[in-house]
């Protein structure tokens, strides 16, 4: 039968001769050895130094009583160990991330399943209890007999998270390495979900997670986070790491982020970034954020208006393009001036030898970089646009505003 951490805590422990040894005060998992096995039990003995029982020294466990398979003399003295995860201290009452439910929850109790292995009993962490049964147990354990508590909790709605979907939050990077806490499971989440999870955590915890994500995921998450948090996070990051993350971001998102930082910090980060990316972001920073130039992205796909559909597709296949936002292509004429746009869907369905000039959308729409954001909103609304080209004083395309930029501006405003 399963046993709960609350029931185990404080249990009396007897050695193989039946002598009383001490009470369980804490127990540990050693993730480097086995991710879910209880590896050590801390036994307190009043004034004497506490002892440690290992997983292969346990004969049987039940609520309130643990039986060792060795004599007291075989036990070692307790030495604190950073690479052990302490269930009571590190897990109980703390917040964890439920990677399947995509939210932050607080641990009320931990469920353990006994497993017989060559004469010993090992306990395995099966799930963490985040609901009412755990709460009731924590409240009543030791006050009311275990049997009554169990009867009561069986009537309550269960709410538990399987151990493999639990992601621990440990802000200290050294400790995280020792405990083998990786954020691979978090990297699989959608950046928007991860950003929402992060908003429920404390500053140190957010910092810890961002620092251990790969740059691409970190960049995607930062782009989704509340801007007050992004600036706090980026300021505290190691400048080199911050620059690496900024490099992964779309230039417009990077510029938005840098614009909120103190001047010295943003300059320092730009200096860390490779020349071309830094220049793009610097250019964008020149624009007033409340104008079209401040909303635009300088990464866009443009082709000559004289080319055919097949030529364009062949060229695009050869490029490393960001496919997320690729739904419209900008056309330029011989003088590099803006001459129209072609939606990718129209491109797909047209004949192989169709010229770009035949496929382009009417009317020809563009705005200068100093146009007010209101004008941008209006033109998107009026023509049901997904993308708008921004041009310079020579009518040459310098960037595009996409509908997602417009939506986030409108939501914020």
């Amino acid at each position, binding site marked *: 039968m399963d046993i709960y951490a609350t029931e185990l805590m404080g249990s009396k422990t007897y050695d193989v001769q039946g002598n009383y040894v001490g009470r369980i005060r804490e127990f540990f998992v050693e993730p480097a050895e086995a991710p879910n096995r209880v590896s050590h039990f801390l036994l307190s003995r009043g004034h004497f130094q506490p002892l440690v029982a290992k997983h292969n020294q346990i004969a049987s466990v039940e609520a309130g009583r643990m039986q060792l398979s060795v004599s007291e003399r075989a036990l070692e003295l307790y030495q604190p160990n950073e690479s052990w995860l302490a269930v009571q201290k590190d897990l*109980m*009452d*703390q*917040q964890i991330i439920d990677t399947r439910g995509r939210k932050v*929850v*607080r*641990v*009320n109790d931990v469920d353990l399943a006994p497993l017989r292995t060559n004469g010993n009993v090992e306990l395995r962490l099966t799930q963490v209890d*985040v609901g009412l049964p755990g*709460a009731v147990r*924590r*409240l009543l354990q030791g006050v009311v007999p275990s049997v009554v508590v169990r009867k009561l909790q069986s009537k309550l709605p269960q709410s538990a998270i399987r151990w493999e979907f639990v992601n621990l939050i440990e802000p200290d990077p050294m400790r995280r390495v020792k405990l083998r806490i990786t954020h691979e499971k978090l990297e699989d989440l959608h950046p928007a979900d991860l950003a929402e999870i992060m*908003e429920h*955590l*404390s*500053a*140190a*915890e*957010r910092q810890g997670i961002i620092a251990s994500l790969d740059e691409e995921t970190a960049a995607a998450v930062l782009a989704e986070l*509340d801007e*007050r*948090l992004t600036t*706090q996070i980026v*300021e505290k990051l190691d400048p080199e790491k911050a620059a690496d993350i900024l490099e992964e971001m779309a230039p417009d998102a990077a510029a938005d982020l840098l614009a909120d930082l103190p001047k010295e910090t943003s300059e320092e980060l730009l200096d860390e970034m490779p020349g071309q990316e830094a220049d793009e972001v610097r250019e964008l920073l020149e624009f007033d954020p409340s104008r079209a130039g401040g909303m635009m992205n300088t990464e866009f796909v443009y082709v000559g208006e004289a080319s055919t559909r097949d030529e364009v597709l062949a060229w695009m296949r050869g490029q490393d393009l960001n496919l997320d936002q690729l739904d419209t292509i900008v056309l330029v004429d011989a003088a590099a001036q803006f001459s129209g746009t072609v939606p990718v869907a129209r491109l797909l369905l047209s004949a192989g030898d169709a010229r770009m000039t035949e496929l382009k959308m009417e009317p020809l729409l563009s705005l200068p970089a100093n146009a007010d954001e209101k004008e941008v909103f209006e033109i998107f609304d009026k023509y049901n646009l997904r993308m708008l080209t921004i041009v310079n004083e020579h009518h040459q395309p310098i960037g595009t505003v996409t509908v997602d930029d417009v939506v986030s501006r409108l939501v914020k405003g």
Partner: protein
Amino acid sequence: MDWKAITSRFERVRTGDTDLQKKIRGLRKRLTLLLAVVGPGLITSNVDNDAGGISVYTQAGAQYGYALLWSLIPMTIALYVTEEMCARMGVVTGKGLSDLIREEFGFRPTFFVMITGFFVDLANVVAEFAGVAASMQIFGVSKYIAVPLAAILVWILVIRGTYRQVEVIFLFACVLYLSYVFSAFLAKPDWLIAAKQTVIPNLRFESGYLLMLTGLVGTTIAPWQFFYLQAGFVEKKVGPRQYPQARADVLIGSISCMLIVFFIIVCTAATLYVSGHRDITDAAQAAQALIPLAGKGAGILFAFGLLNASLFAASILPLSTAHVICEGLGFEAGLDHKFKEAPIFYWLYTILIVVGAGVVLLPNAPLWKILIFSQVGNGIWLPFVVIFILLLVNRRDLMGEYVNTVTFNIVAWVTAIAMIALTLVLTYTALFQTGTPPSP
């Protein structure tokens, strides 16, 4: 002065380079920084002047005139010191007070703090709706109309509004407290005596006077406000870099709260005390009595202030309580969840509003007893909360370089012990005294 100097000066003015302009720009920048953070401190301190509080201030002025004004300065310090610690914890750790208590002290202490909090806050909510009923009666509206309407208003405001909208409305409500300033001026008090009594301590060793003093402290520093304040800064995502602004917010809040108390006491002292209406037991009676003494305007402003304060606190208390309890005990909380996702949160919130408003509507409601209970409850709850705060704020692993300094610790512990002693006295008298102690 030659032409060149003049033009260059003109040029500097045009480009905004003169010292004055620089200063103004610096000031404006600092003001924007402050305004981004202001809110939690100002709102929390002002909610403190709720229906129960205003009743006590009224009685203090009516019974003892200006004689208790001196206590406002030490009270401002106590309010600031305790609130500042919570603000600092919120800003540094990014966690609410109930989260920290849970993580550092475990489930059972948290549970008892939370369950006490629930009943104390419920009694406080009853007091707020009673305040709505009393003030609307002065405007000639029956409580059977006013209270359900107020409950619905509170419900809509909180369910439909985002945090920022709600905060703007609350900040506006803070401004409405100025009605007490106007009624104080209409009462034509003796400002010279008031000023003198404010700075010169005047401690009298009579039991009635001491009880009133205790009552003032007890209503001004209520435990739930620490939870609300800290959560406010966490919710606003104020980080350590903005700590100076957060501290300024708390300071402004504490001072403005006490200024309002000052004007309430001055107003009632100049009218009720001087004319001998010293047996006033609540704020609504005071408003009524003010009309013949200081004119209709003063009475109406006074009643309006009470209505504003009651509604204000009634909007904040149920929501904050449900939030704090759920977060501490680890249940889903927040209005962005659906009922099914956060049933406990919504049940708590609903019970607080429905029961809080419902009790006031009962024909023979034992309001008096509930008000006493709310005060006793605050008294029992306060020591635990303050001690938890002091233990947490001294933890270097949580607070890093922001732990209390030795001087601050001395001030804080002295404040805490004084507050605890005073509230215990109040609790004792409320429980065992048969006379009429200062009543909320």
